[in-house]
């Protein structure tokens, strides 16, 4: 066995250009399958995370919301937006039939934050009624969110003194949330009184976000529908009976993202299949050409006493070395593209993107490498069988 291994390594070293070309072809196999699967899984993870974080069955926003940034763009892409309605709408909505829990939220865009003068989204919630943000906060922070306290998303950089300044007021950062892969990672959360204080400060500084009474302003109402009621029916009821607001089913927000994800996954899937077909076809042709080139070499080995089994083992070892090295290089190249450039992928696709955990990634890596090695080895198997079955005497006589 050791002899076959040493001979295989020597054979591969003797033809460095041929070996490099085969390794590159094998690398394409694992690059495409590992990289493609990782991107698709990250998109699926991002969608699951977004679905979980949304938490509500229905989201009600004022009709004029679309002119100042939609809920989709705030929650999904983290583009700061603001839109307001009077608190009386919350009272009207919460008494509609089928509404089990209703909780107001408040969106405010900061004028500047920390290092970069980049606006961040500040989201206010009512701790007494909230059912969509607090369960998520509890995963990272057990305490209560008091007045002047902030909870920040995973992408917000916390200063050393754990204080963030918004509209000239300083607030304490009490916790940082886990990554979601959505626009919520770049948001800041506070209770209603803290965020209303920010709105008042912004008005004093000349920012005019809301013409009404800031103490009665809300941006949206998150609704959980009671058992036995249809989500669509309750949303339609609100749209018909409460004027100047728009009730949207959370499911329809998710389905538009799921549609985008399906399209991206399909494109990636097609690309992976095309790369595999091309790479396997080229590998097969290459192995056939190489076997034609090596008929005499194998005939000589047969004459000096090598058995058919041994020659098959020799070729199998060569193809495993080539496929193995290629698969590892391809997977490493995919990791170098997908892991560091995750932010760019998310930005380009405008979809939630959350990398799978280390265990899933390791399993995916192992699976991709194993599959690529198997595919590479199988392509060489047919040519190996033909090569070994050649008539040794005839081949050597041809040369005479």
């Amino acid at each position, binding site marked *: 066995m050791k002899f076959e291994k040493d001979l295989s390594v020597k054979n591969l070293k003797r033809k460095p250009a041929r070996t490099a070309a085969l390794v590159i072809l094998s690398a394409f196999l694992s690059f495409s399958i590992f990289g493609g699967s990782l991107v698709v899984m990250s998109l699926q993870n991002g969608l699951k995370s977004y679905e979980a974080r949304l938490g509500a069955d229905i989201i009600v926003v004022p009709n004029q919301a679309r002119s100042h940034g939609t809920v989709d763009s705030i929650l999904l*892409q*983290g583009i700061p937006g603001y839109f307001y309605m009077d608190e009386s709408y919350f009272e009207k909505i919460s008494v509609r039939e089928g509404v089990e829990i209703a909780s107001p939220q408040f969106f405010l865009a900061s004028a500047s*934050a*920390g*290092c*970069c*003068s*980049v606006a*961040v989204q500040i989201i206010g919630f009512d701790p007494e009624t909230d059912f969509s943000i607090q369960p998520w906060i509890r995963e990272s922070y057990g305490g209560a969110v008091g007045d002047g306290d902030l909870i920040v998303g995973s*992408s*917000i*950089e916390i200063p050393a003194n754990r204080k963030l300044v918004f509209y000239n007021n300083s607030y304490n950062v009490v916790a940082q949330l886990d990554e979601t892969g959505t626009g919520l*990672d*770049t948001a800041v959360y506070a209770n209603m009184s803290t965020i209303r204080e920010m709105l008042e400060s912004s008005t004093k500084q000349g920012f005019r976000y809301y013409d009404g009474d800031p103490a009665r302003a809300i941006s949206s109402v998150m609704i959980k529908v009671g058992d036995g009621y249809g989500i669509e029916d309750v949303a339609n009821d609100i749209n018909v009976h409460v004027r100047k607001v728009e009730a949207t089913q959370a499911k329809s927000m998710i389905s538009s993202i799921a549609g985008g994800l399906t399209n991206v996954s399909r494109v990636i899937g097609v690309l992976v299949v095309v790369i595999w077909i091309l790479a396997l076809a080229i590998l097969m042709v290459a192995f056939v050409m190489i076997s034609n080139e090596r008929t005499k070499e194998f005939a000589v080995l047969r004459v000096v006493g090598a058995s058919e089994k041994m020659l098959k083992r020799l070729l199998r070892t060569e193809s495993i070395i080539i496929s193995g090295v290629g698969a590892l290089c391809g997977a490493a190249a995919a990791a*170098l*593209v997908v892991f*560091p*450039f995750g*932010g*760019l992928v*998310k*930005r380009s696709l405008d979809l939630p993107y959350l990398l799978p955990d280390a265990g899933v990634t390791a399993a995916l890596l192992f699976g991709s490498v194993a599959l690529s090695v198997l595919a590479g080895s199988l392509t060489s198997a047919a040519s190996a069988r033909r090569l070994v079955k050649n008539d040794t005497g005839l081949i050597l006589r041809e040369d005479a």
Partner: protein
Amino acid sequence: MEKKINVTDIALLVLSAALLIGVLTVFAPCGPKEDGGWMTCHWAGNATAGVAAVLTVLALVRLLMRDAKIRLGLSAAMIPAALLAALIPGRIIRLCMMPSMRCRAVMSPAVAVCAVLIIAAAGVDILMRRKKG
């Protein structure tokens, strides 16, 4: 004495030059703010370009040197320099807050990838030279 230029010599020069040119052009950090001031990522980009320039000079000097031991030493010197380049954006000098901003979405990962490849190429070069004795 060495006369032959091998793959790692070329790779080290190309990667170092790509890091230098890239950080000044295609993966440059965020532009100036509306008030004309620079964000910290601009200084991270400048510092990275400085280290990339040093790496490029080291790679060029390697090509000119004929002594195998000097080449080995220069390869070894490129590893910590490339590591420094990778650590500047985001670790030594902080970047912008939003992951969607250019400095975090493009510059930082591109610098990291170039640095990893330089470290890998220098490592392979050292291993090959040690094997040759």
